[in-house]
């Protein structure tokens, strides 16, 4: 069971992601509505996994991931966002995200992304990024 932090400025997305995470047998340890809150929550709660929106007020998700990786370089982050542009996906992966889900989010998409990250956990770095791009091409 993973301890999960949900970061999104949208109430309905936080509610639905929480429902899916719980249904998948994991534990939601906290929620944040912007990047700055996410950094503080991550320091305090030390989650195993973060679901992170990109477009948020005050601090966006990509900036937040970069800041979180300063004190936790192994953090597992799945970007959950509406942006389908390839440059945005590449920016997210370069920032340190390990997965990318295109909204609308569903339990199936979350399960697949979590499965990919935690299956790849002990493999050489770089493999998971290739898998991610394959997933996006499907």
């Amino acid at each position, binding site marked *: 069971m993973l301890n999960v932090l949900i970061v999104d*400025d*949208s*109430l*309905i*997305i936080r*509610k*639905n992601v929480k*429902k899916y995470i719980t249904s998948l047998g994991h534990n939601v340890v906290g929620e944040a509505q912007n990047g700055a809150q996410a950094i503080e929550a991550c320091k305090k709660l030390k989650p195993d996994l973060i679901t992170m929106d990109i*477009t*948020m*007020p005050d601090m966006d998700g990509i900036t937040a991931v970069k800041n979180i990786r300063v004190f936790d370089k192994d953090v597992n982050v799945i970007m959950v*966002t*509406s*942006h*389908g*542009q390839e*440059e*945005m996906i590449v920016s997210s992966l370069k920032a340190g995200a390990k997965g990318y889900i*295109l*909204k*609308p989010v569903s339990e199936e998409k979350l399960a697949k992304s979590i499965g990919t990250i935690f299956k790849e956990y002990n493999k050489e770095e770089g493999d998971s990024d290739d898998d991610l791009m394959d997933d996006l091409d499907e």
Partner: protein
Amino acid sequence: MKDKEAGEIETEILLPMLERAISFLTDDMQIKVTSNSAEVVCPNQVELKKNTAMIGTGGSIQVIITMSYDDRLLEKLVEAFLEGEEAGEDELDEIRESVSSEIVNTVVGNALTNPLDGTMLTITPPILIYEAKSLFKHKSSRIATAIVTTEFGDMLLTVIGPKESFADALNFKEL
């Protein structure tokens, strides 16, 4: 943008969003779209409904994109997002705002293209407009709009540019 005819950029941005809005309503929300109801026009005036969410783009193209809903359609969309769960009376207004914002965010984010130079465009967090508004075309401004008619009412999509021509005319609430 000078090489393009007035409204051409806005229309090129609007068309993939119109297509995505229709597939979002039909496939993701299971709401029936009435056939032959969508058309793109470049009017001199647009009437925004009271349920309106807007997003701005950043990058080489700077426009405002709005999405308005009839009351009944928004209620059905809220039901679809809640997936059969009950919402408390105290959080229903916030959920309604959240759904309205999330749909424009999803449709715009999924479908945003840059017909000018292909470079990446960013989008702002969604903003809500709380009252019906009339937008009039300015001398240098461009408006492209489309209406999607569903079994529960209309969705109005509008792309207006340049962004700075209209930003001050819309009294909005940032979420």
